[in-house]
């Protein structure tokens, strides 16, 4: 087990190095001079040079890259070109907002998706089952930013039930609409996965056995069927959670949510490389870490799985 975790962590290192390398050089390929972006268009050549010197932008590219890696190895993500604050500080400040949004979206998705899928699986091919699957398909096909605007228009503008956007006082009222918008894509996926997983499990012999020995239907469904169906469902939940963290860019823009997603868009427009690279690295590391956690959780939920 420990050696499995170690090997997985070891495998993550080259992938993350690749992510850092690609995002570093992609940033340098983009047109626009960060020194000019920092100094402003009316700055003199000398001012620009001073800034370039201060941030090492006048050094050869290979040297800049190695310096970046060296600092990274010491846990230093560099300073933002825009606010001159440490990138790690910016991430630490913005990430909780994104995390809150992702958690809200996950909650909405699991609540709606798993219960819709369960109901579908218990009454397969009924009108309810068909309707739920059609709605699921619609959910997957609706772009998150458009759904966000629809919710905003009908719930906030027309009905005036919830605030249209922003973070406000941090209350739950501000979270509901963005969380639903972000979570809807997974509601659909989750409902379908839950249905398929439950139908698969229901065919197993051990459910027959459970029923035969007289277990109550509710116990068969929860204790025997759902406990086993939970494993594939969990994969979807975790994969979606990872994608919410990095994919909240659109939702955060629609709802003016002050998270990391809206901040990285600002950084991209300002050519603020340290912030872009740091955030991308952070998101990728989270993605890999969540995947590892899911694999470990598998073994916990299903003792038949052995790590080699």
């Amino acid at each position: 087990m420990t050696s499995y975790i170690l090997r997985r962590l070891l495998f993550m290192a080259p992938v993350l190095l690749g992510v850092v390398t690609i995002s570093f050089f992609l940033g340098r390929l983009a047109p626009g001079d960060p020194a000019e972006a920092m100094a402003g268009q009316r700055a003199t050549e000398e001012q620009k040079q001073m800034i370039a010197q201060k941030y090492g932008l006048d050094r050869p590219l290979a040297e800049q890259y190695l310096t970046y890696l060296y600092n990274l190895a010491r846990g230093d993500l560099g300073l933002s070109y825009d606010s001159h604050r440490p990138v790690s500080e910016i991430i630490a400040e913005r990430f909780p907002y994104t995390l809150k949004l992702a958690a809200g979206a996950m909650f909405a998705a699991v609540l709606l998706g798993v219960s819709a899928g369960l109901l579908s699986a218990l009454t397969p091919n009924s009108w309810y089952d068909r309707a739920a699957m059609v709605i699921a398909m619609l959910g997957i096909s609706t772009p998150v930013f458009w759904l966000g605007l629809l919710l905003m228009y009908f719930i906030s503008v027309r009905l005036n039930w919830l605030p249209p956007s922003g973070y406000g006082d941090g209350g739950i009222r501000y979270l509901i609409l963005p969380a639903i918008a972000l979570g809807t894509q997974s509601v659909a996926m989750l409902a379908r996965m839950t249905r398929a997983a439950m139908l698969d499990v229901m065919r197993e012999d051990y459910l027959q056995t459970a029923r035969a020995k007289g277990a109550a239907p509710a116990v068969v469904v929860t204790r025997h069927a759902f406990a086993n169906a939970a494993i594939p469902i969990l994969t979807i939940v975790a994969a979606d959670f990872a994608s919410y963290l990095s994919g909240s860019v659109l939702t955060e823009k629609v709802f003016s949510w002050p998270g990391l997603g809206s901040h990285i868009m600002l950084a991209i427009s300002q050519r603020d490389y340290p912030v872009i690279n740091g955030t991308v690295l952070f998101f990728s590391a989270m993605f890999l870490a969540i995947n590892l956690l899911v694999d470990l959780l598998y073994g916990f939920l299903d003792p038949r799985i052995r790590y080699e």
Partner: protein
Amino acid sequence: MKKALRHPYILLGGGVAIALFCVALLAPVLAPYSPDEIDLDAFYQGPAWNHWFGTDNLGRDVLSRVAYGSRVSLGIGVTTRTFSLLIGLIVGCLSGYYGGKVDLVLQRLVDITLAFPFLLLVISIAVIFPQGVFAVFISLSLVMWAGAARLIRAQVMVVREREYVTAARAFGARDFWIVLRHIIPNSYAPALIWWTMGLGQAIMAEAGLSFLGVGSPEASWGGMINDGAQALRVAPWVSLFPGLALALTVLAFNLLGEGLRDVLDVREQ
């Protein structure tokens, strides 16, 4: 084939898809106005007989812009999926057929691409190029190939061990011939499903880029939804109609992909 034509998802999705391609091809004939025709006297007009879908902040006809926007969406969708499948096919074949070090290096590249936050990687590539359709096409293709490569590689590794491939090799067939004659024909079903299933995703991603302001500057659905977002209170139709068109398109391709997967399911054969 007969089975395919009776599948409700394929009929419905395929029908809508064909209609959409017709709209894209015939946009200049069907659209009542030019998509960029500005009429400042008629800004933010609600849906009416002369403007079915209303007008936007510059008085441009939303219906005409939605019709023209289908060209960007479908064009980007089809070209990106095809190009990324081509890259994935080459990488997947090399990786699966040769194995060893080639496989190791190429698979790390796939892992790295998949570990990136999807939209952020697309944006990072898109901003390198001058803003336009080409930037969207190339950035989406350079990200989406990884999924295809992984799929084709798995397929190749299965086919590689089949007896007829061993036989072909024993007869002295060249690697290139084996890939062309045996491996690609055996991968067509999963590749077709992959292509179709991701078409909606590509179209959605294109709209996302336009919505964020890094997409094509032409009339595109994502860009129009963004235009309308500024005026949601006074002119909700500016966002509503392009969004409906977008959702309908993505739904059609998802249904089609879903239907194809049912009909062509490799596991059932």
